[in-house]
Protein backbone atom coordinates (compact mmCIF):
# COMPACT_ATOMS: atom_id res chain seq x y z
CA UNK A 1 0.00 0.00 0.00
CA UNK A 2 2.77 2.38 0.96
CA UNK A 3 4.60 1.50 -2.26
CA UNK A 4 1.59 2.26 -4.37
CA UNK A 5 1.00 5.51 -2.56
CA UNK A 6 4.59 6.65 -2.93
CA UNK A 7 4.61 5.70 -6.64
CA UNK A 8 1.44 7.69 -7.16
CA UNK A 9 2.99 10.69 -5.46
CA UNK A 10 6.14 10.31 -7.54
CA UNK A 11 4.15 10.20 -10.73
CA UNK A 12 2.21 13.23 -9.62
CA UNK A 13 5.39 15.13 -9.03
CA UNK A 14 7.01 14.09 -12.28
CA UNK A 15 3.86 15.19 -14.06
CA UNK A 16 4.32 18.73 -12.87
CA UNK A 17 7.83 18.89 -14.23
CA UNK A 18 7.88 16.44 -17.10
CA UNK A 19 5.54 15.63 -20.00
CA UNK A 20 2.84 13.02 -20.00
CA UNK A 21 5.28 10.48 -21.48
CA UNK A 22 7.12 9.94 -18.19
CA UNK A 23 4.03 8.82 -16.37
CA UNK A 24 1.40 7.64 -18.84
CA UNK A 25 -2.12 7.36 -17.64
CA UNK A 26 -1.77 9.55 -14.64
CA UNK A 27 -3.95 12.37 -16.02
CA UNK A 28 -7.01 10.45 -14.94
CA UNK A 29 -5.50 9.86 -11.52
CA UNK A 30 -4.81 13.55 -11.09
CA UNK A 31 -8.49 14.31 -11.11
CA UNK A 32 -8.86 12.05 -8.06
CA UNK A 33 -5.75 12.98 -6.05
CA UNK A 34 -5.73 16.24 -4.10
CA UNK A 35 -3.40 18.89 -5.29
CA UNK A 36 -0.38 18.65 -3.04
CA UNK A 37 2.18 20.96 -4.48
CA UNK A 38 0.84 24.50 -4.30
CA UNK A 39 2.33 27.45 -2.49
CA UNK A 40 5.30 25.63 -1.05
CA UNK A 41 7.66 26.43 -3.88
CA UNK A 42 7.98 30.09 -2.95
CA UNK A 43 9.77 29.25 0.26
CA UNK A 44 12.09 26.82 -1.48
CA UNK A 45 13.19 29.42 -3.98
CA UNK A 46 13.43 32.15 -1.41
CA UNK A 47 15.65 30.18 0.92
CA UNK A 48 17.81 29.04 -1.92
CA UNK A 49 17.31 25.30 -1.63
CA UNK A 50 18.15 23.42 -4.82
CA UNK A 51 14.87 23.16 -6.69
CA UNK A 52 14.68 19.43 -6.94
CA UNK A 53 11.43 18.32 -8.49
CA UNK A 54 11.52 14.89 -6.93
CA UNK A 55 11.66 15.68 -3.23
CA UNK A 56 9.99 17.93 -0.76
CA UNK A 57 11.13 19.40 2.50
CA UNK A 58 9.16 19.56 5.70
CA UNK A 59 9.38 23.32 5.47
CA UNK A 60 7.12 23.07 2.43
CA UNK A 61 4.25 22.45 4.77
CA UNK A 62 5.06 25.46 6.87
CA UNK A 63 4.48 29.05 5.99
CA UNK A 64 6.26 31.82 7.81
CA UNK A 65 3.87 34.08 9.60
CA UNK A 66 2.95 37.41 8.09
CA UNK A 67 3.76 40.67 9.82
CA UNK A 68 1.33 40.14 12.70
CA UNK A 69 2.58 38.36 15.83
CA UNK A 70 -0.74 36.86 16.71
CA UNK A 71 -2.44 34.42 14.40
CA UNK A 72 -6.22 34.57 14.63
CA UNK A 73 -7.81 31.42 15.96
CA UNK A 74 -10.35 31.38 13.18
CA UNK A 75 -7.52 31.45 10.67
CA UNK A 76 -6.01 28.40 12.30
CA UNK A 77 -9.23 26.47 12.50
CA UNK A 78 -10.05 27.15 8.84
CA UNK A 79 -6.67 26.10 7.43
CA UNK A 80 -6.62 22.73 5.64
CA UNK A 81 -4.57 19.95 7.21
CA UNK A 82 -1.48 20.35 5.09
CA UNK A 83 -1.23 24.10 5.40
CA UNK A 84 -0.29 24.33 9.01
CA UNK A 85 0.69 27.85 9.94
CA UNK A 86 3.10 28.08 12.79
CA UNK A 87 3.95 31.32 14.48
CA UNK A 88 7.71 31.23 14.01
CA UNK A 89 8.31 33.71 16.78
CA UNK A 90 6.78 31.61 19.51
CA UNK A 91 7.62 28.13 18.35
CA UNK A 92 10.82 26.30 17.66
CA UNK A 93 11.05 23.20 15.57
CA UNK A 94 13.65 20.67 14.61
CA UNK A 95 16.08 21.82 11.96
CA UNK A 96 15.10 20.42 8.56
CA UNK A 97 16.60 16.98 8.22
CA UNK A 98 16.71 16.15 11.91
CA UNK A 99 13.03 15.56 12.39
CA UNK A 100 11.36 12.26 11.74
CA UNK A 101 12.21 8.63 11.78
CA UNK A 102 15.05 8.46 9.22
CA UNK A 103 17.26 10.78 11.25
CA UNK A 104 16.37 9.09 14.53
CA UNK A 105 17.07 5.66 13.04
CA UNK A 106 20.44 6.79 11.74
CA UNK A 107 21.43 8.06 15.19
CA UNK A 108 20.26 4.83 16.85
CA UNK A 109 22.10 2.69 14.30
CA UNK A 110 25.29 4.64 14.87
CA UNK A 111 24.93 4.04 18.57
CA UNK A 112 24.36 0.32 17.99
CA UNK A 113 27.58 0.07 15.99
CA UNK A 114 29.39 1.60 18.96
CA UNK A 115 27.72 -0.77 21.46
CA UNK A 116 28.60 -3.75 19.25
CA UNK A 117 32.24 -2.77 19.07
CA UNK A 118 32.36 -2.09 22.82
CA UNK A 119 30.84 -5.51 23.58
CA UNK A 120 33.23 -7.16 21.13
CA UNK A 121 36.17 -5.49 22.89
CA UNK A 122 35.07 -6.60 26.36
CA UNK A 123 34.39 -10.18 25.23
CA UNK A 124 37.75 -10.41 23.47
CA UNK A 125 39.68 -8.98 26.41
CA UNK A 126 37.99 -11.46 28.73
CA UNK A 127 38.58 -14.47 26.46
CA UNK A 128 42.16 -13.55 25.59
CA UNK A 129 42.97 -13.22 29.28
CA UNK A 130 42.60 -17.01 29.45
CA UNK A 131 45.49 -17.61 27.07
CA UNK A 132 49.05 -18.25 28.23
CA UNK A 133 50.45 -15.58 30.53
CA UNK A 134 53.86 -14.04 30.00
CA UNK A 135 55.61 -16.25 32.54
CA UNK A 136 54.21 -19.40 30.94
CA UNK A 137 55.36 -18.20 27.53
CA UNK A 138 58.80 -17.48 28.94
CA UNK A 139 59.07 -21.08 30.06
CA UNK A 140 58.09 -22.33 26.62
CA UNK A 141 61.68 -22.53 25.37
CA UNK A 142 64.33 -24.68 27.00
CA UNK A 143 68.08 -24.62 26.50
CA UNK A 144 69.84 -27.94 27.03
CA UNK A 145 73.62 -28.36 27.33
CA UNK A 146 74.48 -31.52 25.41
CA UNK A 147 78.10 -31.77 26.50
CA UNK A 148 77.13 -33.89 29.48
CA UNK A 149 75.43 -36.54 27.35
CA UNK A 150 77.60 -39.54 26.52
CA UNK A 151 77.41 -41.51 23.33
CA UNK A 152 74.68 -44.14 23.50
CA UNK A 153 73.01 -42.35 26.43
CA UNK A 154 69.42 -41.12 26.56
CA UNK A 155 68.48 -38.23 28.84
CA UNK A 156 65.04 -36.83 29.67
CA UNK A 157 64.37 -33.12 30.09
CA UNK A 158 61.15 -31.30 31.03
CA UNK A 159 59.81 -28.95 28.38
CA UNK A 160 56.38 -27.27 28.44
CA UNK A 161 55.39 -29.67 31.18
CA UNK A 162 56.20 -32.74 29.11
CA UNK A 163 59.24 -35.09 29.06
CA UNK A 164 61.59 -34.83 26.05
CA UNK A 165 64.02 -37.67 25.24
CA UNK A 166 67.45 -36.72 23.89
CA UNK A 167 69.35 -39.74 22.60
CA UNK A 168 73.05 -39.44 21.58
CA UNK A 169 73.17 -42.18 18.96
CA UNK A 170 76.21 -44.17 17.84
CA UNK A 171 76.96 -44.49 14.11
CA UNK A 172 75.77 -48.10 14.12
CA UNK A 173 72.45 -47.10 15.56
CA UNK A 174 72.05 -44.37 12.94
CA UNK A 175 72.83 -46.80 10.17
CA UNK A 176 70.42 -49.37 11.60
CA UNK A 177 67.62 -46.82 11.60
CA UNK A 178 68.36 -45.70 8.06
CA UNK A 179 68.20 -49.32 6.93
CA UNK A 180 64.64 -49.86 8.09
CA UNK A 181 62.31 -50.18 5.09
CA UNK A 182 59.31 -47.85 5.07
CA UNK A 183 56.94 -50.74 4.38
CA UNK A 184 57.55 -52.07 7.91
CA UNK A 185 56.38 -48.87 9.50
CA UNK A 186 52.84 -48.07 10.60
CA UNK A 187 53.64 -44.36 10.37
CA UNK A 188 56.12 -44.20 7.51
CA UNK A 189 58.87 -41.65 8.05
CA UNK A 190 62.54 -41.77 7.15
CA UNK A 191 64.99 -41.37 9.98
CA UNK A 192 66.73 -38.48 8.25
CA UNK A 193 63.44 -36.60 8.17
CA UNK A 194 63.10 -36.88 11.93
CA UNK A 195 66.41 -35.33 12.96
CA UNK A 196 68.34 -32.15 12.38
CA UNK A 197 71.67 -33.73 13.33
CA UNK A 198 71.47 -37.55 13.04
CA UNK A 199 73.70 -37.91 16.08
CA UNK A 200 71.04 -36.52 18.39
CA UNK A 201 67.49 -37.82 18.34
CA UNK A 202 65.16 -35.39 20.15
CA UNK A 203 61.58 -36.57 20.56
CA UNK A 204 58.72 -35.79 22.97
CA UNK A 205 58.46 -38.63 25.43
CA UNK A 206 54.69 -39.03 25.34
CA UNK A 207 53.22 -42.20 23.84
CA UNK A 208 50.96 -41.34 20.91
CA UNK A 209 48.45 -43.94 22.06
CA UNK A 210 47.06 -42.59 25.29
CA UNK A 211 49.83 -40.44 26.72
CA UNK A 212 52.00 -42.52 29.04
CA UNK A 213 55.78 -41.98 29.19
CA UNK A 214 57.67 -44.82 27.42
CA UNK A 215 60.69 -46.40 29.09
CA UNK A 216 64.06 -45.83 27.46
CA UNK A 217 66.29 -48.74 26.51
CA UNK A 218 63.39 -51.17 26.52
CA UNK A 219 61.32 -52.87 23.87
CA UNK A 220 62.21 -55.10 20.94
CA UNK A 221 63.54 -52.41 18.61
CA UNK A 222 66.42 -50.79 20.51
CA UNK A 223 64.32 -47.81 21.46
CA UNK A 224 61.49 -47.32 23.93
CA UNK A 225 58.69 -49.42 25.33
CA UNK A 226 55.46 -48.03 26.68
CA UNK A 227 54.33 -50.11 29.65
CA UNK A 228 50.69 -48.99 29.60
CA UNK A 229 49.51 -50.87 26.49
CA UNK A 230 52.70 -52.35 25.03
CA UNK A 231 53.78 -49.98 22.26
CA UNK A 232 57.34 -50.50 20.95
CA UNK A 233 59.28 -47.55 19.50
CA UNK A 234 62.58 -47.93 17.63
CA UNK A 235 65.85 -45.99 17.82
CA UNK A 236 64.28 -43.21 15.80
CA UNK A 237 61.20 -43.01 17.98
CA UNK A 238 59.02 -44.64 15.33
CA UNK A 239 56.17 -46.98 16.28
CA UNK A 240 56.94 -50.56 15.31
CA UNK A 241 54.61 -52.71 17.36
CA UNK A 242 51.62 -52.03 19.55
CA UNK A 243 48.48 -49.89 19.56
CA UNK A 244 50.07 -46.41 19.18
CA UNK A 245 49.11 -44.84 15.83
CA UNK A 246 51.94 -42.33 15.25
CA UNK A 247 55.68 -42.01 15.78
CA UNK A 248 56.94 -40.06 18.79
CA UNK A 249 56.48 -36.37 18.06
CA UNK A 250 59.55 -34.36 17.05
CA UNK A 251 59.46 -30.85 18.58
CA UNK A 252 60.87 -27.72 17.03
CA UNK A 253 64.51 -27.30 18.00
CA UNK A 254 67.76 -25.87 16.76
CA UNK A 255 71.38 -26.24 17.73
CA UNK A 256 73.31 -23.37 19.26
CA UNK A 257 77.01 -22.86 19.55
CA UNK A 258 78.84 -24.49 22.42
CA UNK A 259 77.02 -27.81 22.19
CA UNK A 260 73.61 -26.47 23.24
CA UNK A 261 70.23 -27.07 21.74
CA UNK A 262 67.17 -24.87 22.24
CA UNK A 263 63.86 -26.70 22.19
CA UNK A 264 60.68 -24.78 21.36
Amino acid at each position, binding site marked *: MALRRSLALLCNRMLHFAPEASCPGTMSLLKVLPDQNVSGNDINQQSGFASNPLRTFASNAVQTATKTDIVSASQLSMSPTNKIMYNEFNHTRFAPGTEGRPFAYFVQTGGRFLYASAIRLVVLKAL*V*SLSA*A*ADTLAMSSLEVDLSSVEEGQTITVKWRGKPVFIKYRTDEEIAAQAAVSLGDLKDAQKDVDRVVDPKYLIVIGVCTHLGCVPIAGAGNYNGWFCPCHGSHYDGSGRIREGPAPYNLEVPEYKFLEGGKVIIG
Partner: protein
Amino acid sequence: MRSHNKIQVLKLLNQHLGVYPTPINLNWSWSWGSLSGLLLGSQIVTGILLAMHYTGHVDHAFASVQHLMVDVPSGMIIRYAHANGASLFFTVVYLHVLRGLYYSSGSQPREIVWISGVIILLLMIITAFIGYVLPWGQMSFWGATVITSLATVIPVVGKQIVYWLWGGFSIDHPTLNRFYSFHYTLPFLLAGLSIFHIAALHQYGSTNPLGINTQGSTIQFGMYFASKDLVALLILMLVFAIIIFFSPEYLGHPDNLIPANPYSTPQHIVPEWYFLWVYAILRSIPNKAMGVITIGLVFASLIVQPFVSVVQIGSPKFRLIFERLYWVFVADLFILTWLGGQEIMPATMLMGQLCTIIFFAFLLILLPFLAWLETLLLI
Protein backbone atom coordinates in the same frame (compact mmCIF):
# COMPACT_ATOMS: atom_id res chain seq x y z
CA MET B 1 0.60 -15.44 19.32
CA ARG B 2 3.87 -13.61 19.89
CA SER B 3 6.56 -15.56 21.76
CA HIS B 4 6.80 -13.12 24.64
CA ASN B 5 3.07 -13.46 25.19
CA LYS B 6 3.14 -17.24 25.02
CA ILE B 7 6.29 -18.67 26.60
CA GLN B 8 6.31 -18.51 30.40
CA VAL B 9 9.87 -17.29 30.94
CA LEU B 10 9.66 -14.69 28.20
CA LYS B 11 6.26 -13.64 29.52
CA LEU B 12 7.83 -13.03 32.92
CA LEU B 13 10.66 -10.99 31.44
CA ASN B 14 8.28 -9.03 29.23
CA GLN B 15 5.90 -8.33 32.12
CA HIS B 16 8.60 -7.00 34.44
CA LEU B 17 11.11 -5.45 32.06
CA GLY B 18 9.18 -4.87 28.87
CA VAL B 19 5.69 -3.54 29.44
CA TYR B 20 6.02 -2.82 33.16
CA PRO B 21 4.05 0.36 33.91
CA THR B 22 6.43 2.97 35.26
CA PRO B 23 5.53 6.48 36.42
CA ILE B 24 6.18 8.94 33.66
CA ASN B 25 7.92 11.52 35.85
CA LEU B 26 10.92 9.54 37.14
CA ASN B 27 14.12 11.55 37.19
CA TRP B 28 17.81 10.58 36.94
CA SER B 29 18.01 9.42 40.56
CA TRP B 30 15.79 6.47 39.68
CA SER B 31 18.54 5.10 37.45
CA TRP B 32 20.82 4.13 40.33
CA GLY B 33 18.96 0.89 40.97
CA SER B 34 19.47 -0.68 37.57
CA LEU B 35 23.04 0.67 37.49
CA SER B 36 23.80 -1.14 40.77
CA GLY B 37 22.46 -4.37 39.30
CA LEU B 38 24.67 -4.00 36.26
CA LEU B 39 27.71 -3.19 38.38
CA LEU B 40 27.05 -6.33 40.43
CA GLY B 41 27.10 -8.25 37.15
CA SER B 42 30.39 -6.60 36.23
CA GLN B 43 31.91 -7.49 39.59
CA ILE B 44 30.84 -11.12 39.23
CA VAL B 45 32.30 -11.40 35.72
CA THR B 46 35.61 -9.73 36.61
CA GLY B 47 35.68 -11.74 39.84
CA ILE B 48 35.32 -15.06 38.04
CA LEU B 49 38.09 -14.03 35.64
CA LEU B 50 40.28 -13.05 38.59
CA ALA B 51 39.68 -16.38 40.30
CA MET B 52 41.39 -18.10 37.35
CA HIS B 53 44.69 -16.46 38.25
CA TYR B 54 44.52 -15.85 42.01
CA THR B 55 46.07 -18.30 44.45
CA GLY B 56 44.39 -18.35 47.84
CA HIS B 57 47.45 -19.30 49.93
CA VAL B 58 49.22 -16.92 52.30
CA ASP B 59 52.58 -17.61 50.63
CA HIS B 60 51.35 -17.08 47.09
CA ALA B 61 48.39 -14.67 47.26
CA PHE B 62 50.34 -11.42 46.96
CA ALA B 63 52.59 -12.83 44.22
CA SER B 64 49.60 -14.20 42.32
CA VAL B 65 48.07 -10.74 42.21
CA GLN B 66 51.34 -9.33 40.89
CA HIS B 67 51.46 -12.15 38.33
CA LEU B 68 47.96 -11.18 37.28
CA MET B 69 48.94 -7.54 36.93
CA VAL B 70 52.11 -8.16 34.96
CA ASP B 71 51.95 -11.49 33.13
CA VAL B 72 48.31 -12.23 32.31
CA PRO B 73 47.01 -10.61 29.09
CA SER B 74 44.60 -7.79 30.11
CA GLY B 75 45.19 -8.84 33.72
CA MET B 76 45.78 -5.28 34.87
CA ILE B 77 42.47 -4.17 33.38
CA ILE B 78 40.55 -7.02 35.02
CA ARG B 79 42.13 -6.37 38.42
CA TYR B 80 41.56 -2.63 38.36
CA ALA B 81 38.03 -3.11 36.99
CA HIS B 82 37.25 -5.33 39.96
CA ALA B 83 38.88 -3.15 42.63
CA ASN B 84 37.54 0.16 41.32
CA GLY B 85 34.28 -1.50 40.38
CA ALA B 86 33.74 -2.15 44.07
CA SER B 87 34.19 1.56 44.81
CA LEU B 88 31.83 2.48 42.00
CA PHE B 89 29.34 -0.13 43.20
CA PHE B 90 29.29 1.45 46.64
CA THR B 91 28.99 4.96 45.19
CA VAL B 92 25.98 3.97 43.12
CA VAL B 93 24.35 2.04 45.98
CA TYR B 94 24.88 4.91 48.43
CA LEU B 95 23.25 7.31 45.95
CA HIS B 96 20.43 4.79 45.56
CA VAL B 97 19.89 4.66 49.36
CA LEU B 98 20.06 8.45 49.62
CA ARG B 99 17.41 8.69 46.92
CA GLY B 100 15.30 6.32 49.03
CA LEU B 101 15.73 8.55 52.08
CA TYR B 102 15.02 11.74 50.15
CA TYR B 103 11.82 10.58 48.50
CA SER B 104 10.78 8.27 51.37
CA SER B 105 10.68 5.41 48.90
CA GLY B 106 10.78 2.90 51.74
CA SER B 107 7.65 4.11 53.45
CA GLN B 108 4.40 2.20 53.30
CA PRO B 109 3.59 -0.04 51.47
CA ARG B 110 7.17 -0.69 50.29
CA GLU B 111 8.71 -1.70 53.61
CA ILE B 112 9.93 -5.04 52.26
CA VAL B 113 11.78 -3.29 49.44
CA TRP B 114 13.54 -1.05 51.96
CA ILE B 115 14.42 -3.82 54.42
CA SER B 116 15.71 -6.16 51.71
CA GLY B 117 17.74 -3.22 50.47
CA VAL B 118 19.42 -2.71 53.84
CA ILE B 119 20.19 -6.44 54.00
CA ILE B 120 21.74 -6.16 50.53
CA LEU B 121 23.85 -3.25 51.80
CA LEU B 122 25.02 -5.30 54.77
CA LEU B 123 25.96 -8.25 52.56
CA MET B 124 27.78 -5.90 50.21
CA ILE B 125 29.81 -4.51 53.10
CA ILE B 126 30.77 -7.99 54.30
CA THR B 127 31.67 -9.12 50.77
CA ALA B 128 33.76 -6.03 50.10
CA PHE B 129 35.58 -6.33 53.41
CA ILE B 130 36.44 -9.97 52.76
CA GLY B 131 37.46 -9.20 49.19
CA TYR B 132 39.90 -6.57 50.36
CA VAL B 133 41.69 -9.18 52.51
CA LEU B 134 42.42 -11.44 49.53
CA PRO B 135 45.38 -9.53 47.98
CA TRP B 136 47.15 -10.10 51.31
CA GLY B 137 48.76 -6.69 51.55
CA GLN B 138 49.55 -4.88 54.79
CA MET B 139 46.21 -3.09 54.89
CA SER B 140 44.37 -6.33 54.00
CA PHE B 141 45.95 -8.21 56.88
CA TRP B 142 45.72 -5.53 59.54
CA GLY B 143 42.25 -4.34 58.54
CA ALA B 144 41.07 -7.92 58.85
CA THR B 145 42.77 -8.27 62.24
CA VAL B 146 41.15 -5.11 63.59
CA ILE B 147 37.64 -5.84 62.38
CA THR B 148 37.54 -9.56 63.22
CA SER B 149 38.87 -8.73 66.69
CA LEU B 150 35.70 -6.72 67.24
CA ALA B 151 34.04 -10.04 67.95
CA THR B 152 35.93 -10.17 71.27
CA VAL B 153 33.33 -7.79 72.70
CA ILE B 154 30.98 -10.75 72.98
CA PRO B 155 31.02 -11.65 76.67
CA VAL B 156 32.36 -15.00 77.88
CA VAL B 157 32.79 -16.67 74.49
CA GLY B 158 34.15 -13.69 72.55
CA LYS B 159 37.74 -14.91 72.27
CA GLN B 160 36.69 -18.45 71.35
CA ILE B 161 34.46 -17.07 68.65
CA VAL B 162 37.32 -15.04 67.22
CA TYR B 163 39.57 -18.13 67.18
CA TRP B 164 36.77 -19.99 65.44
CA LEU B 165 36.42 -17.17 62.89
CA TRP B 166 40.16 -17.17 62.30
CA GLY B 167 40.44 -20.97 62.12
CA GLY B 168 43.48 -20.61 64.36
CA PHE B 169 45.11 -18.29 66.88
CA SER B 170 45.77 -15.47 64.47
CA ILE B 171 44.86 -14.50 60.94
CA ASP B 172 46.70 -16.97 58.75
CA HIS B 173 46.11 -19.34 55.87
CA PRO B 174 42.85 -20.90 57.17
CA THR B 175 41.35 -17.42 57.43
CA LEU B 176 42.43 -16.46 53.92
CA ASN B 177 41.08 -19.67 52.44
CA ARG B 178 37.66 -19.36 54.03
CA PHE B 179 37.49 -15.67 53.09
CA TYR B 180 38.16 -16.67 49.47
CA SER B 181 35.33 -19.16 49.62
CA PHE B 182 32.90 -16.65 51.15
CA HIS B 183 33.92 -13.90 48.78
CA TYR B 184 33.09 -16.17 45.84
CA THR B 185 29.73 -17.30 47.28
CA LEU B 186 28.16 -14.16 48.74
CA PRO B 187 27.79 -12.25 45.45
CA PHE B 188 25.48 -14.95 44.11
CA LEU B 189 23.40 -14.57 47.27
CA LEU B 190 23.45 -10.85 46.54
CA ALA B 191 22.18 -11.46 43.03
CA GLY B 192 19.30 -13.55 44.34
CA LEU B 193 18.43 -10.90 46.92
CA SER B 194 18.49 -8.23 44.22
CA ILE B 195 15.92 -10.17 42.22
CA PHE B 196 13.82 -10.41 45.38
CA HIS B 197 14.30 -6.66 45.93
CA ILE B 198 12.93 -5.92 42.45
CA ALA B 199 10.10 -8.42 42.88
CA ALA B 200 9.12 -6.73 46.15
CA LEU B 201 9.16 -3.39 44.37
CA HIS B 202 7.00 -4.69 41.57
CA GLN B 203 4.30 -5.59 44.04
CA TYR B 204 3.31 -1.94 44.15
CA GLY B 205 5.43 -0.35 41.45
CA SER B 206 7.90 2.50 41.65
CA THR B 207 7.41 5.69 43.61
CA ASN B 208 7.90 8.98 41.78
CA PRO B 209 9.55 12.34 42.50
CA LEU B 210 6.26 14.05 43.28
CA GLY B 211 5.05 11.36 45.62
CA ILE B 212 1.65 11.41 43.97
CA ASN B 213 -0.49 8.60 42.66
CA THR B 214 0.69 8.00 39.12
CA GLN B 215 -1.47 4.99 38.33
CA GLY B 216 -3.10 6.90 35.50
CA SER B 217 0.11 8.19 33.95
CA THR B 218 2.49 5.33 33.46
CA ILE B 219 4.47 4.33 30.41
CA GLN B 220 6.08 1.01 29.77
CA PHE B 221 9.55 0.46 31.20
CA GLY B 222 10.48 -1.23 27.93
CA MET B 223 11.91 1.30 25.53
CA TYR B 224 11.57 4.49 27.57
CA PHE B 225 13.30 3.82 30.85
CA ALA B 226 15.55 1.19 29.32
CA SER B 227 16.90 3.94 27.06
CA LYS B 228 17.15 6.37 29.96
CA ASP B 229 19.05 3.80 32.01
CA LEU B 230 21.24 3.09 28.98
CA VAL B 231 22.28 6.73 28.85
CA ALA B 232 23.01 6.62 32.59
CA LEU B 233 25.01 3.43 32.03
CA LEU B 234 27.05 5.05 29.25
CA ILE B 235 27.97 7.92 31.53
CA LEU B 236 28.83 5.48 34.33
CA MET B 237 31.02 3.45 31.96
CA LEU B 238 32.79 6.65 30.96
CA VAL B 239 33.56 7.43 34.60
CA PHE B 240 34.58 3.79 35.14
CA ALA B 241 36.93 3.87 32.15
CA ILE B 242 38.50 7.16 33.26
CA ILE B 243 39.20 5.75 36.72
CA ILE B 244 40.58 2.41 35.47
CA PHE B 245 42.78 3.81 32.74
CA PHE B 246 43.94 7.12 34.22
CA SER B 247 44.05 6.89 38.01
CA PRO B 248 43.36 3.33 39.13
CA GLU B 249 45.30 3.55 42.40
CA TYR B 250 43.77 6.82 43.58
CA LEU B 251 41.05 5.21 45.69
CA GLY B 252 43.36 2.58 47.15
CA HIS B 253 45.87 2.76 49.96
CA PRO B 254 49.59 2.54 49.10
CA ASP B 255 50.22 0.37 52.17
CA ASN B 256 48.36 -2.45 50.48
CA LEU B 257 51.17 -2.75 47.97
CA ILE B 258 53.41 -4.07 50.76
CA PRO B 259 53.08 -7.82 51.38
CA ALA B 260 51.38 -8.62 54.67
CA ASN B 261 53.74 -8.72 57.65
CA PRO B 262 52.19 -10.13 60.85
CA TYR B 263 54.95 -8.54 62.97
CA SER B 264 54.68 -4.97 61.78
CA THR B 265 51.54 -2.87 61.98
CA PRO B 266 51.22 0.11 59.63
CA GLN B 267 50.98 3.53 61.20
CA HIS B 268 47.45 4.34 60.11
CA ILE B 269 45.06 1.50 59.53
CA VAL B 270 42.18 2.75 57.40
CA PRO B 271 39.57 0.75 55.58
CA GLU B 272 38.55 1.55 52.01
CA TRP B 273 36.81 4.91 51.60
CA TYR B 274 33.30 3.46 51.46
CA PHE B 275 33.64 2.18 55.05
CA LEU B 276 35.06 5.37 56.50
CA TRP B 277 31.75 6.76 57.78
CA VAL B 278 31.03 3.56 59.77
CA TYR B 279 34.65 3.50 60.94
CA ALA B 280 34.32 7.09 62.20
CA ILE B 281 31.18 6.23 64.15
CA LEU B 282 32.92 3.17 65.63
CA ARG B 283 35.97 5.12 66.71
CA SER B 284 34.05 7.99 68.22
CA ILE B 285 32.61 5.73 70.94
CA PRO B 286 35.33 5.34 73.61
CA ASN B 287 33.97 2.03 74.90
CA LYS B 288 34.76 -0.99 72.68
CA ALA B 289 31.54 -2.89 73.34
CA MET B 290 29.38 0.20 72.94
CA GLY B 291 31.16 0.98 69.68
CA VAL B 292 30.23 -2.39 68.21
CA ILE B 293 26.67 -2.05 69.46
CA THR B 294 26.53 1.39 67.84
CA ILE B 295 27.47 -0.14 64.49
CA GLY B 296 24.58 -2.55 64.89
CA LEU B 297 22.40 0.39 65.80
CA VAL B 298 23.33 2.15 62.55
CA PHE B 299 21.82 -0.61 60.47
CA ALA B 300 18.95 -1.18 62.88
CA SER B 301 17.99 2.48 62.66
CA LEU B 302 18.06 2.21 58.88
CA ILE B 303 15.87 -0.89 58.89
CA VAL B 304 13.19 0.56 61.19
CA GLN B 305 12.72 3.74 59.13
CA PRO B 306 9.44 2.65 57.49
CA PHE B 307 8.02 1.89 60.92
CA VAL B 308 9.17 4.81 63.07
CA SER B 309 8.68 7.57 60.52
CA VAL B 310 5.38 6.99 58.82
CA VAL B 311 5.60 9.46 55.97
CA GLN B 312 2.37 10.36 54.21
CA ILE B 313 3.86 12.80 51.69
CA GLY B 314 6.15 11.19 49.18
CA SER B 315 8.14 14.17 47.97
CA PRO B 316 10.40 16.66 49.74
CA LYS B 317 8.89 19.30 47.46
CA PHE B 318 6.03 19.36 49.94
CA ARG B 319 8.13 18.77 53.08
CA LEU B 320 10.27 21.88 53.24
CA ILE B 321 11.74 21.40 56.72
CA PHE B 322 12.77 17.85 55.92
CA GLU B 323 14.22 19.00 52.59
CA ARG B 324 16.58 21.48 54.25
CA LEU B 325 17.62 19.14 57.07
CA TYR B 326 18.19 16.24 54.66
CA TRP B 327 21.17 18.06 53.20
CA VAL B 328 22.53 18.58 56.71
CA PHE B 329 22.39 14.80 57.05
CA VAL B 330 24.23 14.32 53.74
CA ALA B 331 26.89 16.84 54.83
CA ASP B 332 27.16 14.91 58.10
CA LEU B 333 27.87 11.71 56.14
CA PHE B 334 30.60 13.46 54.15
CA ILE B 335 32.21 14.78 57.34
CA LEU B 336 32.03 11.32 58.91
CA THR B 337 33.75 9.89 55.83
CA TRP B 338 36.53 12.46 56.11
CA LEU B 339 36.87 11.87 59.85
CA GLY B 340 37.23 8.12 59.32
CA GLY B 341 40.49 8.73 57.54
CA GLN B 342 41.97 11.09 60.12
CA GLU B 343 44.18 10.37 63.09
CA ILE B 344 42.46 10.15 66.46
CA MET B 345 43.02 13.46 68.20
CA PRO B 346 40.84 15.31 70.73
CA ALA B 347 39.46 17.58 68.00
CA THR B 348 38.56 14.78 65.61
CA MET B 349 37.20 12.70 68.49
CA LEU B 350 34.83 15.51 69.45
CA MET B 351 33.79 16.09 65.85
CA GLY B 352 33.19 12.38 65.44
CA GLN B 353 30.96 12.25 68.48
CA LEU B 354 29.03 15.30 67.32
CA CYS B 355 28.51 13.86 63.86
CA THR B 356 27.43 10.51 65.28
CA ILE B 357 24.85 12.27 67.44
CA ILE B 358 23.58 14.19 64.41
CA PHE B 359 23.41 10.94 62.45
CA PHE B 360 21.26 9.13 64.99
CA ALA B 361 19.25 12.22 65.85
CA PHE B 362 18.30 12.59 62.20
CA LEU B 363 17.30 8.99 61.68
CA LEU B 364 15.68 8.21 65.03
CA ILE B 365 14.34 11.54 66.31
CA LEU B 366 13.98 14.06 63.51
CA LEU B 367 12.45 11.88 60.81
CA PRO B 368 9.81 10.34 63.07
CA PHE B 369 9.03 13.75 64.55
CA LEU B 370 8.67 15.40 61.16
CA ALA B 371 6.47 12.59 59.92
CA TRP B 372 4.26 12.94 62.97
CA LEU B 373 4.16 16.72 62.61
CA GLU B 374 3.16 16.53 58.95
CA THR B 375 0.43 14.04 59.74
CA LEU B 376 -0.83 16.38 62.42
CA LEU B 377 -0.80 19.38 60.12
CA LEU B 378 -2.45 17.43 57.31
CA ILE B 379 -5.42 16.76 59.49
